[in-house]
C-alpha cells in the first residue's frame, strides 16, 4: 500500500510536467510560431544553465548569478517589509483605536500594484535600487501586517490572564506571552510576504533595468531572444517554489512550539 503511494508521488507529477511540455510544444508549433519550443528553449539556454556562474557583462550572466542578484534584492526588501510590518501588525492588533485609524489606509494601500509604486519610488529616491527595495517592501509588507494583527487579536484570554494574575509588566507580557503566542501567525505572514516579494522582483527589475532574473527577462524580450524569457520564467518559478517550501519548514517549526 505504502509503496503504491510512493510510486504515485513520483509518477503523477512527472505525468503533469510531461503534459505541460506537450501543450507548450503544441502551442509553439500550431498557435504561436514565435514561441520557442521546449527543445529550442533548452538548446538556446543551456550555456546559462550548464555554466550557471559565468559573467560576460552586466546583462549577460549565468542563471544562478542572476538568481543570486535577484535573491539579494528580495532579501533586502523582505527584511524591510517584516521589520516595518511586524511592529505595525502588533500595534493594529493591540489597539482598537490604532486599528480604526489605520485600517482604512492599509486596505487602500494593499491592492496597489508594484507597477504603480515603482515610478513613485523613482520620484522619491531618484535611483533605481532604493526604488526597487521601496516597492518590494511596500507590496510585501501587508501579509505580515495583517497576519500579525490577527495573531495578536486571537491570543487566548487564558494566557493573558496568567500574565494578569502574575502582574507581569507590559514589556514582560509582550516578551513572555504575546510574542510567543503570535509567532505562528507571524511566520505565516512572513511566508506569504516572501512569496509576494518574489512576485514583485520581476516587475521591479523590469522597470529599473537592474541585473537579475527580471532584468534579464526584459532585456532578452527587447533583444528578441524569446527562449531566454522562458528560461527566466522557469527559474523564477522554481526559486519561488523553493523559497515557499523553505519558509513552510520554518513556519511548521513554530507551529508546534
Amino acid at each position: 500500500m505504502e509503496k503504491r503511494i510512493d510510486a504515485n508521488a513520483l509518477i503523477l507529477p512527472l505525468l503533469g510536467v510531461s503534459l505541460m511540455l506537450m501543450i507548450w510544444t503544441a502551442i509553439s508549433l500550431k498557435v504561436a510560431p514565435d514561441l520557442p519550443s521546449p527543445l529550442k528553449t533548452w538548446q538556446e539556454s543551456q550555456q546559462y544553465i550548464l555554466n550557471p556562474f559565468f559573467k560576460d557583462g552586466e546583462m549577460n550572466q549565468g542563471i544562478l548569478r542572476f538568481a543570486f542578484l535577484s535573491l539579494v534584492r528580495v532579501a533586502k526588501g523582505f527584511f524591510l517589509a517584516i521589520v516595518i510590518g511586524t511592529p505595525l501588525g502588533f500595534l493594529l492588533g493591540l489597539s482598537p483605536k490604532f486599528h480604526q485609524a489605520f485600517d482604512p489606509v492599509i486596505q487602500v494601500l494593499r491592492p496597489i500594484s508594484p507597477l504603480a509604486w515603482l515610478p513613485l519610488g523613482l520620484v522619491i529616491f531618484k535611483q533605481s535600487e532604493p526604488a526597487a527595495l521601496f516597492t518590494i517592501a511596500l507590496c510585501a509588507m501587508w501579509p505580515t501586517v495583517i497576519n500579525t494583527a490577527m495573531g495578536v487579536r486571537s491570543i487566548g484570554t487564558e494566557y493573558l490572564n496568567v500574565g494578569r494574575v502574575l502582574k507581569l509588566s507590559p514589556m514582560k507580557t509582550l516578551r513572555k506571552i504575546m510574542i510567543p503566542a503570535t509567532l505562528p501567525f507571524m511566520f505565516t505572514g512572513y511566508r506569504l510576504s516572501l512569496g509576494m516579494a518574489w512576485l514583485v522582483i520581476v516587475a521591479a527589475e523590469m522597470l529599473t533595468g537592474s541585473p537579475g532574473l527580471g532584468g534579464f527577462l526584459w532585456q532578452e524580450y527587447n533583444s528578441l531572444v524569446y527562449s531566454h524569457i522562458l528560461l527566466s520564467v522557469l527559474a523564477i518559478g522554481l526559486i519561488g517554489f523553493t523559497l515557499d517550501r523553505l519558509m513552510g519548514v520554518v513556519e511548521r517549526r513554530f507551529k508546534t512550539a
Partner: protein
Amino acid sequence: MALLEITGLSKNFRRGSRGESAVLPVLRDINLSIDENEFVCIIGRSGAGKTTLISLIAGLIEPDTGSILLGGQAICGPGPDRGVIFQNYSLLPWLNVFENVYLAVDAVAPQLAAGEKRRRAEHYIELVNLGAAMKKYPRELSGGMRQRVAVARGLAMDPQVLLLDEPFSALDALTRGSLQEELARIWMETRKTVVMITNDIDEAILLADTIYTLTSAPGATLGPPIAIDTQHPRTRTQLTGQPIYQKARRETLRLLAGGVADPASARAKNGATLVLQ
C-alpha cells in the same frame, strides 16, 4: 478575623449591545468569610456562575456591588496574592514545565538571586511529583500532569489564598481521584487557604473543611455553610463508611436542589454553622 471576607457581592452580565441590552443577574448577594488555613469548596451546577465567582475573587472581573477584602484590604485587580489554578490549566505552551513555574517565581520574587529562584521553582515541581518532567513541554504531558504543573505554578506564587476553578473536571475519574489525594497531601504540607470550585460532591467532602452550595443562575447565591468536621487527611475508603459522609452528601444535594433546608440547617440560615459529625 477572617482572611477573605466577601460581602454583598453581585454581578450582572449585559446581553446584547446598544440600546436594548438585557441585564442578566449572574450572582447576587454573595457573602462569604474564609479563615486562614481553611479549605473551602463551593459546589454548584454547571452554568451556576461558579467561574464568575472565582474570577471575581481573583480580580479578573469587577463586581457590580459588594466588596472583597483580603487580609482587611480591598482587592484591586488580579494579583499573585490570589494564586489562580484555572480549569483549562492555562500553561504557556511555549515554555517547558520548569519555565512555566519559574515565570511565577520570578514574577512574585524578582529580588531573589537567580539560583534561589531556580531552587524554588524546582521545589514546587518536586512537590507535585513532576521532578522528572522538568524539561518537558505541556503538549508532551497528560491532562493530569498538566494540572499538576498548574498547581505547582499556583503554589509557587506563594499566594495568601489559592483559588482553584474546577481543577480536575477535565480529567478521567482515576486520575481525578489520585490528584485529589495529592492535593490533600500538598494542602497538609503547605496549609494554604484554599477556595476550590467544583461540581463533584465527593471531591468536596474529601477535601473541604467547609462546603458552600451555589444555587443556580440567574441570581445564584450561596447556601449556608456545611462543615465537614472530621480529621485530615481523609481517604475515600475511610470516608464513605462514616455517617458524616452520608449526612454531608444528603445535605449538599438538598441545598443544591433548592429544597427547603431541614430543621438542622434552618438554624444555619440564622448564622449558625450546620455542623455534621
